[in-house]
């Protein structure tokens, strides 16, 4: 169990302090995946490095089990906390297996000789991170997604208590991001490791995380289950300053548009939902009641397929034609 106790993260230079995250108290259970969300510059990395122990806190303590992380010797701390940073790893000759085996360093002797147990831990970490198949290859030949999974395995080989992952999914395309998140959640549950991931993937975080840590710029950190934060409005408020609107009904983000015009929409089924989405994307506010100055869109199920009708015009064959027909 990770217990953060009145932690103040920030930087100290001489007598002046710059507080980045004010007094934070929370816990993370073993096997839980926490996503740390917040706009750039809010101090996500600072908070991660403070929790990980590489940055001294301005005040407060971080407990892992019954041990104060900041009071531990570097080696002992490394045995229970592992990180993935945003730095790019370029060691082209290193094989995936060797990279993951580096995670055993805090556990091995002077020359880093691996015991059978170390090897088993490496294989286990590779399996949990779904990276066993790329382990024999030099990391210079791997894709970004494969390399991130190896870095995840390396961290897990180092510690099975707390993983701090700084934007692990940042360089990946969407399918790879979804994949890594899936791996991450399963890995947390199977290994019983507490995982804190900072990410910009609001949508994925909402769907995957056991807990969210919301860090607004300058504001206090808000902690809760994703759904609780949505319902309390904390989620909307955290990003409001950045000009992103969160729609609690859709559970999705939307770019606010200045030219809001209303459109009435009638119809049913999947076609209706996606038509509404398209209209919103094009900058319209969708309503179900008809009105005087309001254009009317109907989604009609015809024999030859779905058709769209704008006001009383001819049926249109696609959403694209509908949107093009609107001014």
């Amino acid at each position, binding site marked *: 169990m990770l217990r953060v106790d009145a932690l103040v993260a920030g930087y100290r230079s001489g007598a002046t302090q710059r507080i980045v995250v004010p007094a934070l108290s929370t816990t993370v259970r073993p096997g839980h995946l926490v996503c740390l969300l917040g706009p750039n510059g809010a101090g996500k990395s600072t908070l991660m490095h403070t929790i990980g122990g590489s940055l001294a806190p301005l005040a407060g303590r971080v407990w892992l089990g019954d041990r104060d992380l900041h009071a531990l010797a570097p080696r002992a701390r490394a045995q229970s906390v592992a990180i993935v940073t945003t730095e790019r790893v370029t060691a082209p000759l290193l094989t995936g297996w060797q990279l993951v085996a580096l995670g055993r360093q805090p556990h091995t002797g002077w020359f880093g000789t691996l015991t059978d147990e170390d090897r088993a831990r490496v294989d286990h970490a590779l399996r949990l991170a779904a990276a066993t198949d790329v*382990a024999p290859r030099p990391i210079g030949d791997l894709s970004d997604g494969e390399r991130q999974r190896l870095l995840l395995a390396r961290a897990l080989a180092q510690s099975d208590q707390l993983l701090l992952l700084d934007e692990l999914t940042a360089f990946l395309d969407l399918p790879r991001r979804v994949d890594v998140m899936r791996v991450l959640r399963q890995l947390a549950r199977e290994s019983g490791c507490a995982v804190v991931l900072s990410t910009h993937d609001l949508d994925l975080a909402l769907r995957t995380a056991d807990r969210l840590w919301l860090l607004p710029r300058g504001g206090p950190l808000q902690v809760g289950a994703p759904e609780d934060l949505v319902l309390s409005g904390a989620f909307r408020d955290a990003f409001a300053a950045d000009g992103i609107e969160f729609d609690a009904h859709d559970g999705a983000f939307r770019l606010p548009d200045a030219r809001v015009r209303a459109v009435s929409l009638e119809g049913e089924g999947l076609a209706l939902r996606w038509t509404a989405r398209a209209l919103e994307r094009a900058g319209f506010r969708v309503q179900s009641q008809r009105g005087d100055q309001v254009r009317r869109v109907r989604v009609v199920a015809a024999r030859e397929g779905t058709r769209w009708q704008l006001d009383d015009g001819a049926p249109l064959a696609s959403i694209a034609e509908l949107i093009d027909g609107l001014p």
Partner: protein
Amino acid sequence: MTAPSGVLPITASPSGTARRPQVVLLLLVALLVMAFAAELLMGTVAIAPADVLALLMGRADADDTGALIVRTVRLPRALTAALGGATLGGSGLLLQTLFRNRLAGPWILGVTGGARVGVAVWIVLVSLAGSFVPARLGIGGSIGVALAAGCGAAATLAFMAIAARRIGSVSLLILGLMLTFLAGGLTSVLLHLVPEDQGRVWEAWNDGNFGGVTWANLRILAPLVLLGLGSALLLVKPLDAFQLGERYAESMGVPVRRVRQIALCAVSAMAGAVTAFCGVVAFLDVAVPQLARGLCRTSEHRVLLPAAMLLGAAMALCADLLTHLPGGNRILHLNAIAAVIGAPVVIWIVFRRPDDG
């Protein structure tokens, strides 16, 4: 190692490729022994192998000319070349890992240049103090020269370590080359201040050369080099962690600062000492680690570091052998051979993976 159940069998676990490094290291030892033997056996004066062997076994006539040549010329020369080459290969690899730059090395980063300036300053100071330059003659002089070179090397390395935090890796290499030029100029200017007869002692030293190092010099050179190589070998585990960058190394419990300080001191001591007694030897520092990587196909330092040392020693012996092979019309300079071997390797690195970091 057995593959965990339910997983595809892994052929390349750490042990999957374990044979190759061992074989390569054995071959390198054999190469080193052969090169060393060749250096003892071949030269402008023909000496029978049996006589050389007899001398090495301590069964030679002390007045024999052949024995004298082997004892006072060839053996110290071979030892110097082996120590010098091991230093260049080992410290090249150390700096490449610390700076995360495949083109780093004591020569290319200006460290040997700095060592040379250190020696030049020392000579001027001694000369101004009015005493004769005894550097090549006695133990005391050797210590002074080695100390001055070590200080020059350490100062340059400290400067480069700070510079590396501010400028990119390519700029760093250009900076290193400029420092080398600057050091060459400064050395010439400094030696200009010294009376001609004393300055002349150092003219030969302007070019890299493993010859002319006496047993008295070796008594200082060898311990410094062995100390440097030994401390480097103790760092193989943290050096592996450095491959991922200092932040990762720190997160793995590596005392980053201390490791960096030990490594830079080791490089200063051994590269400084070698420069003090052999002058500046170019290119091998960059080329040898890269060739060792190619041979071992690994970046694990427990294999790569000894390989770079062994290969460096063997290549330095071979290069030195080429400079004094019988039958040549003129003296061939060591750095000419080093450049012919080393520069293509550097060019190859530049073209192959420009952004390896």
